[in-house]
């Protein structure tokens, strides 16, 4: 690692721990914990809600807050999975397999202690691997030209479309719709208006902020209302927890080999756009059960069934930042919203950020690191109050989230059209969720469309002028091959998910 990178890392570390900047990751982590501990709400919705608040902030504070949102959300979703058999996020569903049976056996504290320790240590593994990869990411980002960026956009979109959701056709169609919607407004090359249908509001194209707020925050709330749950956990009374936190923490060191292997699985899978942490957790769980001598306890409250997916889930956060920061390709929903927030503050991931704004990159990484530790430590301390909080009536919480989402969309540019756009996308997002249409390819296509279209035109022009030969560039050919592979990988992972769902149904009998 050269001196510039080390200097940037140390400077960023100093900034993260300086006053008043330290408040941002702490507050961000607390908010992310609160949101992710509430089934039906999620950190992507929180990030979308926070974008309007940060319009006037300096980029450093934005990085600190959003780094904390990415890192602070993962562990708390496991708490609801362990305590109530309801995962905070899809990725926490695997933890239910053994976590909830442990709660039923009076071992909730042991399971939560294990989840907290493996989450904190797993994220540390992922973050340090990410830091080690930064020199490579910088070299890659500088070496890439328009043909490679074009193929990266195509590969990122195809991979996400193929691997997220249950149907390849639906995923690809959602990505196509996202690309098409992103073309509303002025053509970047000819300045001709496209698809405005006579509406002045559409001249500048669809803005990402109201779209994100609608698709994630509002759709999540409509889903929460439609579910009819009286309280966030679905239970009206708080139950006492049994077991020992210390025993749970010790179990991570007792199975340290499994922890390291699961963290590596999480980091590698996190770095591949679209595969997602749910798959990372499941593969780690599958590895844990296959590599165990005694498999009979898996699905009935085996601590290794909590350790492996939790380590993988948190290690993947570091991995997911590799394509996001190096290439501007988000690995999932959270990083897509993060990308949107960064672009609003004039920060473009990729070459520009890794060379000109390296300190900010490290600020994001340290904030992620810090928030993962805060969330695990506070999570352990606050398990009981959190369990009580989950019995709060949803009807009291909902108006605040609705009001904040619409307010956020409206305040961005002061246009009532943005609020209407957020509500429309909220309804569309809810319907997509309900009828099993993946929202992630649509959102990521919206975010990647400018990169796709600009580099497509640049590549064609350069090819025309004889400055590049598209078909003789090795990375272009590699990405083309990966695109084809991802199209075949999608149906395979679909079968894997079906297997997982069957197994979950047999083990828990609860809701997925």
């Amino acid at each position, binding site marked *: 690692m050269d001196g510039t990178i080390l200097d940037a890392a140390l400077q960023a570390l100093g900034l993260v721990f300086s006053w008043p900047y330290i408040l941002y990751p702490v507050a961000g982590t607390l908010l992310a914990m609160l949101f992710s501990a509430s089934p039906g709400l999620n950190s992507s919705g929180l990030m979308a809600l926070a974008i309007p608040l940060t319009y006037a902030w300096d980029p450093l504070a934005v990085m600190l807050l959003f780094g904390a949102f990415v890192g602070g959300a993962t562990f708390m979703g496991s708490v609801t999975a362990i305590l109530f058999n309801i995962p905070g996020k899809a990725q926490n569903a695997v933890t239910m397999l053994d976590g909830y049976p442990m709660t039923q056996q009076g071992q909730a504290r042991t399971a939560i202690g294990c989840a907290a320790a493996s989450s904190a240590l797993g994220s540390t593994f992922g973050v340090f691997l990410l830091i080690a990869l930064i020199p490579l990411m910088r070299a890659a980002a500088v070496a890439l030209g328009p043909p490679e960026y074009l193929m990266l956009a195509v590969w990122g979109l195809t991979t996400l479309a193929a691997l997220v959701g249950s149907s390849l056709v639906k995923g690809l169609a959602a990505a196509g719709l996202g690309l*098409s919607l992103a073309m509303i407004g002025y053509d970047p090359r000819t300045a001709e208006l496209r698809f405005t249908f006579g509406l002045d509001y559409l001249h500048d194209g669809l803005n990402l902020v109201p779209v994100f707020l609608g698709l994630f925050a509002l759709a999540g709330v409509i889903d929460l209302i439609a579910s009819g749950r009286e309280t966030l956990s679905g239970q009206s009374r708080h139950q006492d927890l049994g077991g020992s936190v210390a025993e749970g923490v010790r179990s991570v060191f007792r199975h340290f080999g499994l922890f390291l292997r699961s963290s590596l699985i999480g980091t590698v899978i996190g770095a591949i756009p679209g595969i997602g942490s749910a798959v990372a957790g499941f593969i780690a769980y599958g590895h844990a059960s296959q590599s165990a001598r005694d498999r009979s306890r898996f699905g009935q409250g085996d601590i290794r069934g909590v350790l492996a997916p939790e380590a993988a889930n948190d290690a993947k956060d570091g991995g997911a930042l590799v394509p996001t920061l190096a290439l501007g390709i988000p690995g999932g929903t959270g990083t897509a919203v993060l990308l949107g927030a960064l672009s609003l503050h004039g920060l473009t991931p990729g070459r520009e950020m890794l060379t000109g704004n390296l300190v900010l990159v490290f600020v994001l990484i340290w904030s992620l690191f810090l928030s993962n530790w805060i969330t695990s430590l506070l999570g352990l301390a606050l398990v009981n109050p959190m369990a009580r909080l989950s019995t709060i009536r949803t009807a*009291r919480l909902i108006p605040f989230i609705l*009001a904040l989402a619409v307010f956020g969309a409206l305040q961005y540019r002061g246009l009532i059209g943005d609020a209407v756009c957020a509500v429309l996308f909220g309804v569309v997002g809810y319907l997509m969720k309900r009828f099993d249409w993946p929202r992630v390819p649509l959102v990521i296509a919206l975010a990647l469309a400018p990169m796709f279209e600009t580099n497509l035109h640049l590549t064609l022009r350069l090819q025309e002028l004889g400055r590049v030969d598209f078909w003789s560039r090795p990375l272009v050919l590699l990405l083309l091959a990966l695109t084809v592979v991802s199209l075949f990988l999608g149906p395979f992972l679909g079968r894997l998910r079906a297997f997982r769902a069957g197994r979950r149904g047999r083990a828990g009998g609860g809701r997925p």
Partner: protein
Amino acid sequence: MNRRPRGNIPTGSWLTLAFTLLAGAMLAATFNLSRPSAWVPQAVLSVTLGLLVWQLIAELRSQAADANRPGARRARSAVAWLGLLLVVTWLLGAAAGPAVFCLCWLHWHAGERWPPSLAIGAVLGLALWLLFSVLPGVPLYPGAMLRLPG
């Protein structure tokens, strides 16, 4: 397996149909554009439309009955409340609108008594005004009927 009666369109297919119509309308609109502006959207939309039609046919040919999906009425009510939020925000502005919405929701939807509903609504409006207008110094959306400070 439950079978769907012949001629009935599955509920989820209405969404697929809406997406298909949207893609079709956008593709039709590209024919009014100049050639340099039209070819990229035409290429993307043709593939998208093909995929959507494929999906729609697959759903219509499927014999499986609609899954029992509770909560449709509650979802419609949520959308109606969202509509109300939009209207009051447009009329009363970015701080007073959400506050009035919160008051109405808490009283009529959540069944809270008037005093706590009023207090919580007022606190929300005040918090929005202070946090998003006074502190960052950004003017709030004024609303069609009222003009609030900020």
